[in-house]
């Protein structure tokens, strides 16, 4: 149990040296390394937290954008549907209008064509009727009819108004020859009847009887550059005018 005080002192110095050396080579580097690691971990944790919060924010933004997009999509779809419906209605309306106009035009055209056709038919019917009438009258025209025509013509001349009568008389008296034109040759009885009537009206020098086959049935008196006639053609022409007037 002896204490060597030199050894005690030396050991104390040794121990202090050991403390200093270990502080330098052990504690300080280890503590420093651990502090750095801790700081690094804290920094990394902070970074992670920051990134997490950023990610969270981005996620929120993304979700918000997604919701916005969804909402926009619905709006756009609704708007597009409305627009399409409006367009469709407008187009339908336009088509309907066009169709109506086209129908109207078609109806008008139809009406016009019907009218034209009606006109043509009427015209043809009238013409055919007239032709038929003319043909019937031509077929009926004979001597006895001619006799009646002459008498009818002479009655008409007699029924002329006074001023016309005087014009006729003047024409007969002034001219050298009075020309009577008929389709069929007039027999002597008829000629003398005409000549007698003329003589009663005015002094006539000569009566010339001529034929004209263009007359369907009728008679014409020409004197002094004028003519008086009774002709079925005239009646037919008047009828034609009357018939075709509504079609013009």
């Amino acid at each position: 149990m002896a204490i060597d005080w030199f050894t005690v002192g030396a050991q104390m110095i040794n121990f202090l040296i050991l403390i200093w050396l270990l502080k330098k080579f052990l504690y300080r580097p280890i503590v420093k390394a651990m502090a750095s690691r801790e700081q690094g971990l804290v920094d990394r944790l902070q970074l992670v937290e920051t990134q997490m919060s950023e990610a969270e924010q981005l996620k929120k933004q993304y979700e918000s954008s997604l919701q916005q997009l969804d909402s926009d999509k619905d709006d756009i779809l609704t708007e597009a549907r409305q627009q399409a419906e409006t367009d469709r209605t407008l187009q339908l309306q336009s088509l309907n209008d066009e169709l109506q106009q086209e129908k109207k035009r078609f109806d008008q055209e139809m009406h016009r064509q019907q009218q034209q056709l009606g006109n043509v038919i009427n015209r043809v019917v009238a013409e055919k009727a007239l032709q038929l009438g003319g043909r019937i009258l031509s077929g009926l025209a004979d001597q006895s009819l001619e006799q009646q025509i002459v008498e009818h013509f002479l009655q008409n001349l007699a029924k002329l108004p006074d001023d016309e009568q005087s014009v006729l008389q003047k024409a007969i008296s002034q001219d050298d020859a009075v020309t009577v034109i008929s389709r069929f040759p007039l027999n002597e009885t008829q000629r003398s009847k005409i000549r007698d009537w003329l003589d009663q009206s005015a002094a006539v020098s000569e009566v010339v009887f001529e034929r004209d086959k263009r007359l369907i049935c009728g008679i014409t008196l020409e004197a002094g550059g004028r003519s008086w006639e009774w002709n079925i053609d005239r009646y037919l022409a008047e009828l034609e005018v009357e018939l075709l007037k509504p079609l013009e």
Partner: protein
Amino acid sequence: MLNNPDQIILWQYDVIKINATLAFTWAVMALLVGGSFLITRRLSVDAPISRLQNLLEVIVVEVDKQIGELSQQQPERYLPLIGTLFLFIFVSNVLAVVPGFMPPTGSLSTTTALALTVFIAVPIYGIYRVGLWRYLKQYCQPNVFMLPFNIIGELSRTLALAVRLYGNIMSGTVVAGILLSITPLFFPIAMQVLGLLTGTIQAYIFSILAMVYIASATPKSE
């Protein structure tokens, strides 16, 4: 039977002598400082960490934790003293299993030196922390009549600290020597294993007591 390494003089000039205690102390110091230097010169802050660095970190962290729990103060200031006490005593005691190695802690001179270091460190830390007057005042607590008893307590605990460590380690060596002469086979090995345990516990007890003394001398009210 030569149990005291102080008595093995390797070199002497007048009163200056180099005995086995000093030599083995230097060996332990070289081992500790050299090992620390080799490990800490390539410290890595980030993973992966080498196993030896990890071991040192575990030791430092554990010592820190113990100091913190005991003192309820920041452990950085006490770490060099308490950590070195533990490491030095622990390595010295563990190396006792090496044939021919005589642990310096088996020398009363060494344990006295360590106890005196603690004895000096206690007031230094106390004064540094609470100031000279307040530190001295606590020797008169609860009243001035307790001053001699407090001083005696201070001295006796230093003595107890020295003798406890010395007695445990020296006894281990003595017991091993005695058993070796009685039953040379097997039993001394068991005693050696027991000695490792005892040495580790002693290192722990010495460090903890040193910390307790220091902590008790620095009032927490501060």
